[in-house]
C-alpha cells in the first residue's frame, strides 16, 4: 500500500516537472510557482492558472477556471471526511492532501468493515504526491529557466497534451465520452464570440445537464 503511494507520488512528480517548467516559461517567479504547488496543490488547477495568465488571459477568467477545476476536490473531501473521520489539526492536513490521487487510492481499497487499508492509502498517496510534486516543481522551474521563447519548444502544445492526459483515464464510459465531445464542440463554437475563459466555463453546464440526466435515468 505504501509502495503504491510512493509510485503514485513519483509518477505525479513527473507532471510536477512539467508544471515547474511551465511556470518558468510563463513569466512566473519561482516563488509564485512554488506557492501554487504548496498551497493550491491540485494539478489541473495549477496548469490552468499558469496557462491562462501566461497566455495573457484576464485575472477573472484565470481564477474562475482554476476554482472550477478545484471544486471537484470539495466533492472528494466530502467522501474522505466520512472515511477518515478525523478531529483537530489532522483533519485540516487531510483536507489539504485531498486530491485526485489520494482519493483514488483510498476509494480503490475502501470496503465496508475494513477501512484501515483505505485510510492508509489516502495518507500514503497524499503525502507522497505532496512531497514529490513540490520537489519536482522546483527542479522543473530551474531546469527550464534558460528557455527564451517557450513557443519554440512547443510549450503551448505541451499544456494541451497535459490536459488531454489528465482527461484520458476519465473517458472510460459512454456518458463521459459524450460529455467530452460536446464540451470540445461547445468550447470551439464559443471561442470566436466570447471573451477568453468563457468557453471553458460554459462547458460546466454540459456536465451539469449530463449529470442531472444520468441520475434521473438511473432512478427511472
Amino acid at each position, binding site marked *: 500500500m505504501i509502495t503504491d503511494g510512493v509510485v503514485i507520488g513519483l509518477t505525479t512528480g513527473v507532471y510536477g516537472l512539467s508544471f515547474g517548467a511551465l511556470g518558468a516559461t510563463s*513569466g*512566473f517567479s519561482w516563488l*509564485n510557482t512554488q*506557492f*501554487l504547488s504548496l*498551497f*493550491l496543490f491540485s494539478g489541473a488547477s495549477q496548469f490552468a492558472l499558469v496557462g491562462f*495568465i501566461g497566455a495573457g488571459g484576464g485575472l477573472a477568467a*484565470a*481564477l474562475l*477556471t*482554476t*476554482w*472550477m*477545476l478545484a*471544486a*471537484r*476536490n*470539495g*466533492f472528494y*473531501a466530502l*467522501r474522505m471526511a*466520512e472515511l477518515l473521520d478525523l478531529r483537530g489539526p489532522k*483533519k485540516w492536513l487531510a*483536507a489539504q492532501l485531498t486530491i485526485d490521487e489520494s482519493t483514488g487510492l483510498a476509494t480503490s481499497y475502501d470496503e465496508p468493515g475494513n477501512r484501515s487499508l483505505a485510510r492508509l492509502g489516502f495518507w500514503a498517496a497524499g503525502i507522497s504526491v505532496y512531497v514529490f510534486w513540490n520537489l519536482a516543481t522546483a527542479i522543473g522551474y530551474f531546469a527550464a529557466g534558460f528557455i527564451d521563447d517557450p*513557443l*519554440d*519548444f*512547443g510549450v*503551448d*502544445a*505541451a499544456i*494541451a*497534451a497535459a*490536459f*488531454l*492526459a489528465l*482527461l484520458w483515464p*476519465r*473517458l472510460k464510459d459512454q*456518458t*463521459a465520452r459524450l*460529455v467530452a465531445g460536446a*464540451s*470540445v464542440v461547445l*468550447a*470551439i463554437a464559443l*471561442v*470566436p464570440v466570447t*471573451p*477568453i475563459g468563457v*468557453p*471553458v466555463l460554459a*462547458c*460546466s453546464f454540459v456536465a451539469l445537464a*449530463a*449529470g*442531472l440526466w*444520468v*441520475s434521473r435515468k438511473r432512478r427511472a
Partner: protein
Amino acid sequence: MIWAAVILGSLGAMAFKFAGFALPRRLIERPRVVAVAMLYPVALLAALVAVQTFSTAGRLSLDWRAVGVGAAVIALLLRAPFIVVVLLAAVVTAGARYLFG
C-alpha cells in the same frame, strides 16, 4: 497581478477542500451531486484541451499545435506514460515549427 492570481487561486482551491471536510455528510448521498461531480472535470478538461489546441489570444487558430496534440493522442492510445505524452506533443510541435515555419 501574478501574485493576486496565485494567492486568490490558492485560497479558493483550499476553501473547497476544507469546506468538504466541514460540511454535513448527508450531501454526498445525493446521486445527483455525485453524477455531476464525476462529469465536471471531464467537461472542463475537454474544453481546456480544445481551447489550448485551437485558439490563440481569444481567436480560433489552426497551427502545428494540432499536429503535436494528435501525436499525444497516439501516445495515449499506446498507453505511454504522462511525461512521454507531454514531451512528444512539445517535440512534434517545436519540430514542425522549426522545419515548416
